[in-house]
């Protein structure tokens, strides 16, 4: 048997229950892995050695007493550093929150703790989740384990990498325009964005509140279900949480795709998408047809405007949400002397990085008197058209499929100077956020450069069960078992 750090959550759970190893052993395995990979990748901002050791010990004590709180008990899990953890530094990768220790846990953190999960630490992200490469972090970039000259995607790049290399068994990210699915695609893991409202946003540092959803990274589709089962469900602390019993997310994992109708999104299979990515996506669509699905073309005519609409809506909401960082109640305060208003303005200019400042300015402009209707108002109407396109498509197909990203991992620095080129890497993921629908990325192979290709399955609102059903078949058909060089136990420094 290989290293424990390479097991899936479900296999690790079987071993825990069989007494083959302990939660402390699993924690030691991921900690040892991190000690090798971190110098090359910088996926973690904070490792909570003490808290994790205590949680592992508690999980082992539970197993010894025959207490079993479910599939995550004793499993080491990493968290994106925009989720509040009581007493553990939470920075959102921003200088403005340097050293901040939240006085409370986010609901997802509470749920993980109650399920007996072991929280390893906090992972790197693009500052306040704004970015697609994890280069916009005040604490330095995260690298891609398949090739350290490449970005891991973002904004949840740190979380994606921990799961990809085995410095955690799974991890949580947040997805506002693709920030879970895009880095999952670029690092060869499974990444999922739930239906808006399925997972509580309480304690998630807000970026764009009508788009943000927390979702899991995992090394298998079944692991993704196990994680979503724990973190989902109504939360009275989040007014946008859906107050209804959660669906049976994993109920159809083994059913295959026979009899399902699957639509290939025409708009994401042509211009602007790398030919190798299109070829791999088309090949998988054909294999789904071979497995008994009816595969048809589907069109979302308004999605070509989705990116533009998103880059008005998300900055507008961010400019409002980030007003709270004013140097008064938490985080950084400037040393510049002046009035309170001057203090705020200097604190914010010192504390925020360039991409965050750019989006705050853009959002402030788009919401300002005289421009509101032309920009924000019009973007909201485009959002309606995108939703209508999805509704129409789901009138005749069960799920939609597409590439997750237009290209495989791009080079560090390649798009850093061109914000719009960076924004284009979320082309295929943004529409699901605008619609509020669930979507998942599953790795299906490697391109000529040896970089992973992600395959996206989208489903209607609360359609996680059929989404996972198709994703599981994609996983079986792809048989993607390759691991990044930096995920192997015998790591050679690049």
């Amino acid at each position, binding site marked *: 048997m290989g290293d424990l750090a390479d097991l899936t959550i479900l296999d690790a759970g079987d071993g825990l229950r069989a007494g083959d190893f302990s939660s402390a052993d699993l924690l030691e395995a991921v900690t040892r892995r991190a000690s090798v990979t971190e110098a090359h990748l910088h996926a973690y901002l904070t490792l909570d050695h003490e808290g994790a050791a205590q949680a592992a010990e508690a999980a082992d004590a539970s197993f010894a007493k025959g207490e079993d709180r479910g599939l995550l008990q004793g499993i080491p899990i990493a968290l994106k550093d925009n989720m509040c953890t009581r007493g553990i530094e939470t920075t959102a990768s921003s200088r403005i929150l340097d050293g901040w*220790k939240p*006085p*409370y846990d986010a609901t997802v953190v509470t749920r993980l703790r109650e399920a007996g999960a072991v929280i390893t630490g906090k992972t790197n992200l693009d500052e306040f989740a704004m970015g697609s490469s994890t280069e916009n972090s005040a604490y330095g970039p995260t690298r891609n384990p398949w090739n350290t000259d490449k970005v891991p995607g973002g904004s949840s790049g740190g979380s994606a990498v921990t799961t990809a290399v085995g410095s955690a068994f799974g991890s949580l990210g947040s997805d506002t325009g693709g920030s879970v699915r895009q880095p999952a695609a670029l690092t060869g893991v499974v990444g999922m964005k739930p239906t*808006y*409202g399925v997972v509580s946003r309480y304690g998630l540092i807000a970026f764009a509140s*009508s788009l943000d959803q927390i979702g899991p990274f995992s090394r298998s589709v079944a692991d993704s279900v196990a994680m979503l089962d724990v973190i989902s469900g109504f939360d009275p602390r989040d*007014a*946008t*949480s*859906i107050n209804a019993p959660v669906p049976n997310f994993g109920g159809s994992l083994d059913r295959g795709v026979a009899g399902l109708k699957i639509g290939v999104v025409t708009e994401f299979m042509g211009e602007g998408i790398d030919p190798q990515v299109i070829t791999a996506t088309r090949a998988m669509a054909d294999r789904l047809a071979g497995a008994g699905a009816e595969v048809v073309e589907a069109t979302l005519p*308004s999605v070509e*405007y989705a990116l*533009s609409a998103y*880059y008005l809506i998300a900055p507008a909401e961010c400019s409002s949400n980030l*007003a709270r960082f*004013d140097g*008064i*109640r*938490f*985080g*950084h305060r400037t040393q510049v*002397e*002046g*009035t*309170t*208003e*001057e*203090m705020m*303005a*200097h604190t*914010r*200019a010192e504390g925020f990085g360039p991409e965050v*400042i*750019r989006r*705050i*300015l*853009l959002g*402030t*402009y788009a919401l*300002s008197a005289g421009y509101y209707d*032309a*920009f924000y*108002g*019009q*973007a*909201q*109407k*485009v*959002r*309606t*058209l995108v*939703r209508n396109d999805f509704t129409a498509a789901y009138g005749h197909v069960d799920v939609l499929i597409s590439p997750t990203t237009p290209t495989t991992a791009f080079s560090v620095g390649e798009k850093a100077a061109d*914000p*719009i*080129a960076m924004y284009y890497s979320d082309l295929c993921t943004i529409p699901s956020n*605008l*619609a*509020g*629908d669930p979507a998942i990325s599953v790795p299906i192979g490697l391109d000529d450069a040896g970089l992973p290709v992600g395959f996206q399955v989208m489903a209607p*609102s609360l359609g996680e069960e059929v989404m996972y059903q198709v994703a599981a078949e994609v996983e079986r058909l792809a048989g993607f078992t390759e691991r990044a060089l930096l995920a192997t136990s015998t790591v050679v420094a690049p």
Partner: protein
Amino acid sequence: MDESSTRVGTIAAMPVDIDIAKVARLARLALSDEELEMYGAQLGDILEHAERVQSLPTEGVAPTSHPLPMVNAFREDVARESLEPASFLSEAPDVKDGQFRVPRILG
């Protein structure tokens, strides 16, 4: 890169009307003249792209502000524990007598 140079070219032809200093003031961001110039140019670039949304006919289309049909979320009016003030005051930059302290309000 051809595409982005074309894009820069079209911006000069289609100036977007931005008073960037005013926007920065509204956003409470104390930026230098050089920063204002840089962000102003980048915003022009992004907004030129965003103007595409205006080319889509949306007459009679209702705006979507949120993916869910939002209704007021009520809870039972019962007392519950809240955070101990010390737990968050200890994280504030400046505190006096159990309250957040700020610099003078008037210039």
